[in-house]
């Protein structure tokens, strides 16, 4: 658990230079130009996006949940929470049902709508760079250290230190510690999170439990249902047998 990698994004340090966007596009081999830079939303060609809110900035990317909703809903296991922290996408498994997109509480996964054989596109926290011991492309390039990467535990400690040292600069909470069971992207803000467009109404408990409550009943329904239906069949046809037997007796 302690080895789990994460990102700490401190919105108070972000100057909106969009170098993270550019580094991300480069790493994925995606086109990046002025037009795309102006699109302040996640899409198939923008796996991280800096959003301008008045004078502030907020960076959108996959939150890499500790218990990802997308991983739980995928019927073919195309999304996987790795031990290292990143939630990765196995393109060769994906059937394109897009349930991950519907279910994601952060509305992150994007789809290649214009392609005949589309894929889901989302940040993978630079999984192969992390495996090689490197930091993510976005944190490496960030000129103000608004985005830094490291072990999740250490980043939480760092975030708490910043809140304690400069309480006047921060809204006194860390986004991502508790939201839907915790995420591997942690966010600090000067203002309440919803003012940055972050969902503050998400439950603390991971979402997969909601469907699991129903799914875990499946064996019960099968067991009880079979016995019940079999029993009813036995009773209703027993009546017939009795009626037939009685009819014979009367005749004889």
């Amino acid at each position, binding site marked *: 658990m302690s080895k789990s990698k994460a990102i700490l994004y401190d919105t108070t340090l972000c100057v909106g230079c969009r170098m993270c966007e550019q580094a991300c596009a480069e790493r994925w081999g995606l086109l990046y130009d002025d037009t795309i830079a102006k699109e302040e939303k996640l899409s198939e060609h923008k796996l991280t996006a800096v959003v301008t809110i008045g004078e502030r900035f907020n960076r959108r990317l996959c939150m890499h949940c500790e218990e990802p909703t997308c991983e739980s809903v995928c*019927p073919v296991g195309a999304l996987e929470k790795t031990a290292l922290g990143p939630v990765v996408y196995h393109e060769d498994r994906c059937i*394109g*049902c*897009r349930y991950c997109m*519907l279910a994601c*509480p952060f509305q992150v996964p994007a789809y290649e709508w214009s392609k005949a054989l589309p894929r889901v596109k989302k940040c993978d926290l630079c999984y192969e760079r992390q495996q090689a011991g490197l930091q993510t492309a976005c944190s490496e390039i960030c000129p103000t250290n608004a985005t830094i990467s490291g072990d999740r535990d250490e980043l939480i400690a760092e975030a708490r230190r910043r809140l304690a040292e400069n309480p006047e600069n921060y809204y006194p909470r860390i986004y991502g510690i508790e939201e839907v069971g915790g995420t591997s992207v942690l966010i600090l803000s000067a203002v309440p999170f919803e003012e940055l467009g972050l969902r503050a109404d998400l439950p603390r408990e991971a979402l997969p439990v909601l469907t699991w409550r129903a799914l875990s009943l499946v064996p019960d329904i099968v067991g009880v249902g079979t016995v019940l*239906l079999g029993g009813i069949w036995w009773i209703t046809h027993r009546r017939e047998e009795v009626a037939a037997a009685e009819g014979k007796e009367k005749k004889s």
Partner: protein
Amino acid sequence: MNAIASPLARLRWPRFNLWHVIFWLVMLGGLYAAYTRFLHGLGAATHLSDQFPWGLWIGFDVLCGVGLAAGGFTLAAIVHIFNIERYKAILRATILTAFLGYLLVIVALLFDLGRPYRIWHALIMWNPRSVMFEVAWCVMLYTTVLALEFAPAVLERFGWQTPLRWLRAVSIPLVIAGVILSTLHQSSLGSLYLIVPHKLYPLWYSPLLPLFFFLSAMCVGFAMVVFESWHSSRAFGRQLELPLLASMARVLAVLLGVYLLLRFVDLRHRDVLGLVVVPRLETWLFWLEILLMLVPMLLLFRRTVRLSPGALYASAVMVIFGFVAHRLNVSVTGMEAGSGTSYLPKWTEVMVTLAIIALGFAVFRFVAKNFPVFPEESPRPLPAPAAGD
């Protein structure tokens, strides 16, 4: 037509009526939509987006298609499990509808899936924590069960006795498996939306969604039996099984009552009952859905309605529309605000849906004409007319 010596007149033109023209226009439109979808991708053929990844094809074709096929398991249970033999007359037609319904749902899925050729992946790549995984298995298994349940009609037609005997030997386990798979499947379509408490409008989001989907599927199952019997009796010149349908309508009325009561009890327990008077689009569509279930319920409690073919049919149609409204409210209306976007299907999406429905009607007609779907009736009008309803 003037038949004198014109070479065109000597050809035997198929007799066209308005329905044929509509059918072929719809199929043509569907074909064009399919071309767009498969060559230029989902983006070109639909109004779906990253914010709204599921639209008409999931909301109507799949969610409603499966539901409208619910007559199959309801009636199979009544006839074979509860041993109420008199309903046997309409069982096969219902099983056929359910089977075709499921096949068409699979066709719709092939349109909707981004990589339709990988539809089989769930067979070997398992994720039992996923509702979609359960849905996939239920569709595969129940379609197989329905094929086996309908197989006797085909086997009888060709007089193949041996496989018929085999099927009869396993018919009860098959029916039980069918009922259980349907129960699981109907409810799991509701469970799909348990994962979006943050997106689905509170009038529809409920931990009881699976139960509501199951109950409303049973309601629409009965309504579909009435609907199909009525149409079959007209199309094939058969007597309407009115006493059967009337007693079934009683059950339907009670089920509708239970369903509606639970809906409101649930709203109260979740402390959102106040939302039913908030003036916004969701509220109007909520009431539309509720009234389309409430009005037929009140009607069906009246004996005169149950015994009048027209009124009975109208009530069934209302239930069907109420059911469709509920599914579309959950999958489209209720999801728009929470997704921060709006969605209206593109015309190509509508075209595919219409083509799939038209295909369903055409195949049903073909099978019903050529296989023993309905029990032999004293002088059955044979051969059936070549065209026209």
